[in-house]
């Protein structure tokens, strides 16, 4: 139980996917302008991360390892994720239209989000068991959402700031991200 908790918190805070592993920078910079879209994207990523882990873990340990095909990981995982995102999109559209309305826009963006492929590969690399993998995915997704939500607040302030012309736009956003990342460094060393 304690081990699971450590995995959850370290995936969320100390090894935050966006701010210390640099995965999913594109949505981090692209979708963090408004609070509601940041929340939506965060939820969608968390959901897909957990589901992708649930699907890829049995495939790796049940099909690829017994047949000595581990080197197909990348190809199989990315295909499974792409198919899965498509499936979730179709199902949400049919079954829960209200949820689809709020999350649907972000789903196609997630297929090639490195955080999703990253979490599935990391689970295998760290040789987590099934429970640990799910917790790691949950922590990673929540950490992603946390970073996006915090950053959307920072960007709101940034809009009113008087910035030199050269730095306006992306450069200023990146420097703001660097300061947020410094604040997350405060968590390092929390678990050993």
């Amino acid at each position, binding site marked *: 139980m304690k081990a699971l908790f450590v995995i959850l918190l370290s995936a969320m805070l100390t090894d935050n996917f966006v*701010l210390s*592993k*640099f995965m999913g920078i594109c949505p981090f910079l692209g979708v963090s302008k408004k609070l509601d879209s940041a929340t939506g994207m965060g939820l969608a990523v968390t959901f897909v991360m957990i589901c992708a882990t649930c699907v890829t873990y049995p495939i790796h340990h049940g099909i690829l390892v017994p047949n000595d095909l581990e080197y197909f990981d990348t190809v199989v995982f990315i295909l499974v994720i*792409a198919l899965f995102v498509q499936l979730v999109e179709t199902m949400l559209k049919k079954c829960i239209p209200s949820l689809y309305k709020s999350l649907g826009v972000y789903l196609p963006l997630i297929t090639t989000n490195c955080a999703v492929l990253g979490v599935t590969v990391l689970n295998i690399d760290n040789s987590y068991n099934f429970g640990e993998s799910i917790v790691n995915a949950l922590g990673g997704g929540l950490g992603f959402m946390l970073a996006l939500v915090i950053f959307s607040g920072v960007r709101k302030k940034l809009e009113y700031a008087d910035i030199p012309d050269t730095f306006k736009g992306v450069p200023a956003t*990146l420097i703001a991200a660097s300061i947020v990342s410094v604040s997350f460094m405060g968590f390092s060393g929390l678990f050993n």
Partner: protein
Amino acid sequence: MAENKNSLGKELTKGIIKENPTLVMLLGMCPTLAVTTQAKNGIGMGLATTFVLLGSNIVVSALRKIIPDKVRIPAFIVIIASFVTLIGFLMEGFLPDLYESLGIYLTLITVNCIIFGRAEMFASKNGVVASACDAIGMGIGFTLALFLMGSVREIIGSGQWMGLTIPVLSKDPMLLFIMPAGGFFTLGVIIALVNKLSKKKPPLELSCKGCPHADACAKNGGDCQ
């Protein structure tokens, strides 16, 4: 013939400065930030990406009339992932040190938006030779950008550069620069400098133009900003 050569030359050179994938089009940020703690890693990552880009661009453009439009995204992904697996094997065999230091980011080349974006925007519409030139140009541009980032971060952050020790800086290196925060900072300053030097209006937002999902996003009535 001369004109043909000219246009191929243009495909080759446009990626290096004018449409530099990282610094101008702002694609492929994840590896740019993650592996550039050393100039050497930057070059390794850049060359690995160039290899995958070249392979996938050639295959995609050769198959562009065979792959049905509806399944093109999964098809491109499989092609790209196969080349990533290939470069993973090659690097593990011949350059094990680099393989160790790139780690998971080597696998993540699969989802690098530069590769997907070029397959979608260029290779699926142009011939094999033009696509190969485009891939080489974009790859060199990406490698140069990573090398620049890596050099700045390594020199300031650890006082070394490609195995050389920089006299004054190595005494008191600013460790922040090789930490994640320094990556964001360095990239921000470099993009600002590029804006200043090119005297262009800076890109106010990440543009949808380069995003491989622009189509899907617009169809859903989405606005990726």
